[in-house]
């Protein structure tokens, strides 16, 4: 597991049914591209988050495939429609097999 991987997520706490809301996510991760070399000239192997999924009550909002060209501390901003109250689940998949998740609740009036 990469060290110190902390996610930050911004989701509004409330929304109207069917409203389009904005979601921002940020996660600390080096996103080692596999292009850099260390002091001895050896390639530092690639180690990135390769996939990010946001779901709401089990349905997909967005599923992102990440390549090494995504910057360190991957940031995504996207939108969702919320038909009802429930839970957003955010999942990041690391090359090394680790999976990072977080959730946010939202109340829909």
């Amino acid at each position, binding site marked *: 597991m990469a060290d110190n991987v902390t996610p930050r997520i911004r989701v509004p706490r409330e929304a109207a049914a069917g409203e389009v809301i904005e979601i921002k996510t*940020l996660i600390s991760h080096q996103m080692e591209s596999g292009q850099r070399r260390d002091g001895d000239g050896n390639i530092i192997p690639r180690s990135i988050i390769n996939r990010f999924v946001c779901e709401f009550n089990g349905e997909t909002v967005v599923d992102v495939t990440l390549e090494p060209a995504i*910057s360190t*501390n991957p940031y995504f901003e996207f939108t969702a429609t919320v038909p009802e109250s429930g839970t957003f689940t955010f999942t990041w998949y690391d090359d090394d097999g680790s999976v990072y998740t977080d959730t946010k609740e939202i109340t829909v009036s």
Partner: protein
Amino acid sequence: MRKVLQRTVAAMALGSIASIAMAQDDGADLVINGEIEIAVRAPAPAHMSDTGIDTILSGWVFRSDETRQLEMDDFDNPAFLAVDQGLEAWNTVEGTEGKSCATCHGDVEESMAGVRAVYPRWNEEAGEVRTLAGQINDCRTNQMGADAYAYDKSDMTAMEALISVQSRGMPVNVAIDGPAADAWAQGQEMYYTRYGQLELSCANCHEQNYGNYIRADHLSQGQINGFPTYRLKNAGLVQTHNRFRGCIRDTRAETFAVGSPEFVALELYVASRGNGLSVEGPSVRP
């Protein structure tokens, strides 16, 4: 004598350059999260009266729109990942004394309000000027019985960022007189000393040529009110002494060490050139 001459020449040269440099300030204001007003320009402090600079400008003013945007919202600002980590460290017990920062200092928002704005400053007990990083390590080793943080690595910058946030928006106000005066004078002398193969002093770029381009970089006034800063180049927080090292290395000189008395003095002087600007850290810079 030579310094006075240098500065007089610089001031005369700047007279012509100043008008061009001022044209670089597009007058934009910085408000973070829609609520925190950051003074990115202010009248130059009295001690800069013969530098030819009337208005001091934060580095933010010199950046492109996209870079500026990254700092205007704490969520968009990647430095806040480190602030979160700093907060965790604040509440974590470490060291032989079984304390965390919170044990003595309580809530960081209350105890650290205004602290960053007055650093570096003279520490009476220690008999020296201390930087924020120096003071953090002093607390860790002497009060907590914990290992000192590496001066410029991510643990330290995260803690500095956390503490900077508590002074955000407050005017920088470092003391340059009294017991700190010697260190301040030393820092001032360094600022105007040419270093390295390229024989450049801080003033050559940041006082005489701010607003101009050096190769592809848009020169700022070299203010440090925004430090520690999230540098896009490093995709991580960078600290004042790191930047000093980088600048001196870019003149192709042997540079001083982070945490060295020379850099502490320089940091005090450079901070004082920003007296009046708001504490902006952690900021975003390219």
